[in-house]
């Protein structure tokens, strides 16, 4: 299954590159009839997802409270999301009596590998990294294996091997789910023949997985809907992306929705769209604080969120289970983090962090502490 995942990623990347010039892909044949059963499923899922999640998604407690005194090195990517997650992780393991140290990765292409090597040299009890492809990290991972240091790789799109233990926290699975959720919402909300522009950053594999999942689900529940792909480069965000989105909307005034595979991509776009006198619904996955504020203001329409505090606690939980020797699939829908569809109507009741980011479940700390036998 994991191998096929990897192939899918490559396939998606290739397909993205090849269709880039074409730009537009029809989600399904417009003559195809919508499957009423699928639409009904979508409606059910949307209805339940509009509610706040009521749990962190794990129900199995640890076999025992973790032994104190372990040291974990966090190899941190200098992105806002990763940093918030790492802060939550450090906060969580403090409760075990563990200590952590964060090594921040530089911007160079080899920096991730160098930083993990550096982490191995510090001889911690375990290493946590996220996002990077393990296949590019063969050397430092071999070093970690030789040193007997377990590695938790979170939000990676590749098969796990060597010192990496399977912690069931897969970014791809979550992104697939979030993409599907948003597609269902668009289909349910806007009905057939809806035209959607999807803005993506193909440089990040997980985001392409989101895009792919969205497109697939939309064609399934709404064969008459249409998707226009707008792939961006990292340096376009905030500079060229706004004009690129505006151009797409000018080209095809029938576009009703602009969906972003990640919230940061929307920087500056609303202003440009508004200045161009165009009206369009906005939504996507991985809402940032600006998107949530826009939901409150009613200028954007639907987002799902990734709860970085819960993700950080989940990393800590998995590490505790690993050292306890507990099963790493702790019951419930363990692959998924809690998430929900947020709209201007529901945003008022959504749990947010103090900085205005998505939290999802305000009671997450207590729930984790209970699982860990700390309360």
């Amino acid at each position: 299954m994991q191998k096929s995942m990897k192939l899918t990623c490559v396939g998606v990347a290739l397909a993205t590159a090849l269709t880039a010039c074409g730009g537009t892909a029809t989600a399904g044949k417009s003559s195809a009839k919508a499957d009423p059963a699928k639409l009904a499923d979508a409606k059910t899922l949307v209805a339940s997802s509009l509610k706040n999640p009521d749990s962190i998604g794990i129900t199995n407690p640890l076999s025992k409270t973790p032994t104190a005194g372990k040291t974990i090195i966090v190899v941190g990517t200098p992105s806002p999301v990763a940093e918030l997650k790492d802060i939550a992780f450090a906060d969580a393991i403090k409760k075990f009596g563990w200590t952590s140290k964060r090594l921040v990765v530089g911007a160079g292409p080899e920096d991730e590998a160098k930083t993990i090597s550096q982490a191995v040299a510090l001889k911690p009890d375990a290493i946590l990294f996220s996002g990077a492809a393990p296949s590019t990290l063969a050397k430092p991972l071999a070093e970690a294996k030789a040193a007997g240091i377990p590695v938790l790789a979170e939000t990676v799109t590749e098969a796990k091997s060597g010192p990496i233990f399977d912690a069931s926290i897969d970014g791809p699975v979550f992104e697939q789910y979030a993409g599907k959720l948003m597609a269902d919402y668009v289909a349910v909300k806007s009905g057939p023949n809806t035209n959607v522009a999807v803005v993506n950053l193909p440089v990040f594999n997980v985001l392409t997985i989101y895009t792919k999942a969205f497109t697939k689900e939309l064609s399934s529940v709404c064969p008459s809907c249409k998707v226009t792909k707008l792939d961006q480069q990292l340096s376009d965000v905030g500079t060229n992306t706004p004009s690129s989105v505006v151009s797409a909307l000018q080209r095809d005034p029938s576009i009703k929705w602009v969906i972003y595979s990640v919230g940061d991509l929307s920087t500056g776009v609303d202003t440009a769209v508004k200045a161009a006198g165009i009206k369009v619904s906005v939504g996507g996955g991985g809402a940032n604080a600006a998107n949530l504020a826009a939901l409150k203001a009613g200028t954007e329409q639907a987002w799902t969120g990734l709860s970085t505090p819960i993700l950080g606690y989940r990393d800590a939980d998995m590490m505790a289970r690993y050292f306890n020797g507990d099963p790493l699939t702790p019951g419930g829908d363990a692959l998924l983090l809690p998430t929900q569809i947020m709209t201007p109507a529901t945003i008022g009741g959504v749990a947010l962090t103090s900085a205005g980011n998505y939290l999802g479940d305000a009671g997450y700390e207590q729930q984790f502490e209970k699982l860990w036998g700390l309360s």
Partner: protein
Amino acid sequence: MTISDKTAEAATSRSTAPNGSAAGARASRRRIGFGFNKFSGLYLWAIVIVFFAIRLPQTFGTTQNFKIMAGDQAITAMVALALILPVAAGVFDLSVAANVGFCVCVVTRLQMHGMSAPIAILMTLFAGALVGVVNGFVVVRLEVDSFIATLGMSSILAAGAYWITGGQQLVGGVSQKFLNLGQNTLWGISYPFYYMLVLSLVLYIIVEHTPVGRYLFAVGGNMQAARLTGLRVDRVRAGALICSSALAGLVGVILAASLGSASQDVGPPYLLAAFSAVFLGTTQIRPGRANVVGTLIAVYLLATGVKGLQLSGAPVWVNGLFNGVALIFAVALAARGARRQRASNAAA
């Protein structure tokens, strides 16, 4: 020969060979008057507009589209305008885009701390200008090449922006009034376009119609000769850097208002586009020197081409491709024209 000399030379392809050849080229430029050399950008722009307007009458050839294009490029144009003063004076300010990003973060963060918008804006302009004071000191007093000094400053500003934001996106905490400054529209075009027009006019007057403009080009043209006419060369060079930095502060404020949020990475991507526009601009209107009108033509020529391609359905990377090709092509054309004139002069 300094780096700036080299680049200026590359950008305009003027020969530094004493007299003869260069003289011929200059004479020819003059003789042609309203010819292709000076206004190639305008002609090219017209061709691009006509081409896409015919191909895409529904999308490209609409009033609305031209309003969109006008508003879209305001920030890039202002960053490019900020660069004109230092480029004219023969110094580089590579820190200008990072400074814009830094000031976006400063003005947002100050307001999040409860500072009122006008004071936050003033403080930000001051912070931007202060960066220029440091640049000026390093370039003029410590005699570090401006290319290196401002490259270093660029890195420092990126670090500063990261520190201010904590690596996070800053959202909220700014008043709607502040946002209106960047997001409201007048006659269908967003406010920054009008700021850009005012800035262009002011810079145009300074560069072309005040003694300061003369000083800038004197220093940029021959620093030693400028010094020997009693010009305070150091002040001119430092002043140019301070002005570009203060303008970067202004652009930062406008960008913050138009984005509505701040993150540490919004500034730097403007650098390449702005420099391209200034260099492309040196081939237009006043060949061989940085000038306001040429720079604006360059910005909008590139933007029009990109817009047309986008509306034809080209992917986003075409943006960079078009900018790069257009820059090299236009400068090469100008050089070729000059060379050919030189050859015909020599034959005559």
